[in-house]
């Protein structure tokens, strides 16, 4: 039981990291807290589903198409809406929240609720690790989570666009004097965040089903991970993903599944009381708290 819980805790941690990394990327660079994040996650899953079941495309092309579409949607969202309210935290939050709400409730209104709304697993295969059954999809989550984290790190540290990302995140005005177009980089960061949400959806959704309320859950999980890890810090996301992931799985096994949400809440409260900027949030410490 313990070993099994451990394996699932690792999978859960990588799920959380996958969920949070897009939100964190957007926030860390453009400073936009994308409250439509959960809606983008659900939207991309529904797009794949529609392409598969209404148009009849195979899974992989439709998944790739929906990831691209979501990325484009993120860019459009920034260009059409967020650019006009840039820098006003209140307006950004309300605008993205409004967009997310509209998308999710539209899907709910259209009746996209039920177990038949799900995506297929990549390979239908499972094997035994440490005495517990684990399927291929969960292994994929771990592998892809690792891959994404590493490639994001490489991207932000060893490519010129990635360095421009970090430049904007550190000081927008100084970055401008170096000829970095901050609006373009911010557009990229929002659209990449949306794309990462779509990738996460493609990998994680096959384990469950798509539903509008999933959108709110994803947003909450992403927020929880980012708050605990320190907003805008990738190392923090990984650490917090593991902390919450393990805490959730172990409370699930030893106390019951209803308590998992409460554990995250308590974790957030403790972190906020002791270190309001999150575990690894030193870089922006002065800006995010008083």
């Amino acid at each position, binding site marked *: 039981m313990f070993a099994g819980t451990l394996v699932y805790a690792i999978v859960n941690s990588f799920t959380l990291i996958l969920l949070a990394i897009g939100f964190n990327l957007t926030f860390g660079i453009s400073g936009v*807290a994308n*409250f439509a994040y959960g809606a983008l996650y659900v939207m991309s899953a529904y797009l794949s589903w529609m392409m598969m079941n209404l148009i009849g495309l195979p899974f992989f092309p439709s998944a790739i198409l929906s990831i691209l579409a979501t990325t484009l949607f993120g860019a459009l969202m920034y260009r059409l*809406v967020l650019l*006009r*309210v840039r820098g006003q*935290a*209140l*307006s*950004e*939050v*309300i*605008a993205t*929240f*409004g*967009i*997310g*709400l*509209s*998308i999710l*409730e*539209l899907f*709910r*209104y259209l009746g996209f609720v039920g177990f038949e709304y799900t995506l297929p697993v990549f390979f239908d295969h499972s094997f035994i690790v440490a005495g517990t059954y684990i399927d291929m999809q969960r292994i994929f989550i771990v592998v892809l989570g690792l891959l994404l984290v590493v490639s994001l790190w490489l991207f932000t540290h060893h490519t010129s666009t990635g360095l421009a990302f970090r430049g904007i995140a550190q000081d927008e005005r100084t970055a401008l004097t170096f000829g970095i177009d901050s609006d373009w980089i911010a557009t990229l960061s929002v659209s990449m965040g949306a794309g990462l949400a779509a990738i996460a959806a493609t990998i994680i959704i096959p384990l469950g089903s798509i539903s509008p309320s999933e959108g*709110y859950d994803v*947003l*909450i999980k992403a*927020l*929880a991970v980012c*708050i605990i890890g320190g*907003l805008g810090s990738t190392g923090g996301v990984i650490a917090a993903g593991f902390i919450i992931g393990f805490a959730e799985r172990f409370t699930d096994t030893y106390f*019951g599944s*209803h*308590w998992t*949400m*409460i554990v*995250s*809440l308590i974790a*957030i*409260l403790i972190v*906020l*009381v002791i270190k*309001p900027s999150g575990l690894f949030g030193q870089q922006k410490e002065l*800006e*995010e*708290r*008083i």
Partner: protein
Amino acid sequence: MKKRKERIDRGIKARSGDIFALSSWREMLYVAGPRLLPVILFLLLPLFLSPYWQRVMISLAVFAMLAISWDMLAQSGMISLGQALFFGVGAYLSGIINHTWGIHPFITIPLATVFGGLICTLILLPVLRLRGIYFSMFTLILPLMLVRTIEATKIFGGTEGLSGMSPLPSGWLELYLIIIATLSVLFGFRRLMASDYGLVLKGIRDNDRSVTNAGINIYWFKAQALFLSSAVGAIAGAYMTHVYLFVGMPVFTLDYSIMPIASAVVGGVGSFAGAMLGATILVPLSELLRGIGGLRIVLYGLCLVIFIVAIPEGIFHYLQRKYQQVERWVDVDR
């Protein structure tokens, strides 16, 4: 006789915007009219409404209160995405007190108001140190997590909730009590924010560090603003408990968080009257649109986006500006 155009407010309003030099009844009416109009309207309208629309009026007043309490927080620099927390805590408190000991609503509602305000303030106290977005994130999470907690621990009736509260003595009292409470909160908060105390709160929103530099303990002021706002939210919740005679998990739903924000944004942030106006527009509208069901929330969401991008000042500020720019023809002195 030559005539020229003159702005009405020229003779009345000095440059500062809220100091008026009144010299005639007409000018007094010009200043007092916009304030008296909603009061008279809200007090007289219920007499002509059908029982169904009287219920709508109650929910209008409740949402207006929540919107005003949201605006209060927003004006002190705290953007809440979880008004449902205040509403729900108030609702549950008065529900539990009434359900357990059978105490009269006239006692449970004030109790729920004060203790609801205290509880919400205490819950949010550790987050007061957080700025803007970080505060919003936490307030968004909180009501949703409280729902899960109630679901998991099965306290307070669990998923079924508590029912069988005692109703308020009469329908008319029920209606007028909440309308008068809403109007008092509206004008009381407007007055409060116009005083020096309100100036400190607005200062915290604009630049918290310079307020700290002035030797003011901003946490104390923020906690007070939070208490005022959450107490108002709690009255609304406690009241609804005794109107619906039921309290359960639906009090923490997103409706009670999103509708106040939508009202305040549509009406205009920063003047309480805007929040009231927004609720007056949106609540009856959503009642008329009841037929389209879930699509209503989609409309609210779009409303939020469109207003925040296209008309960020809101309807109230637009109307206020136009009202103060009304011109009249006067004789030219020779």
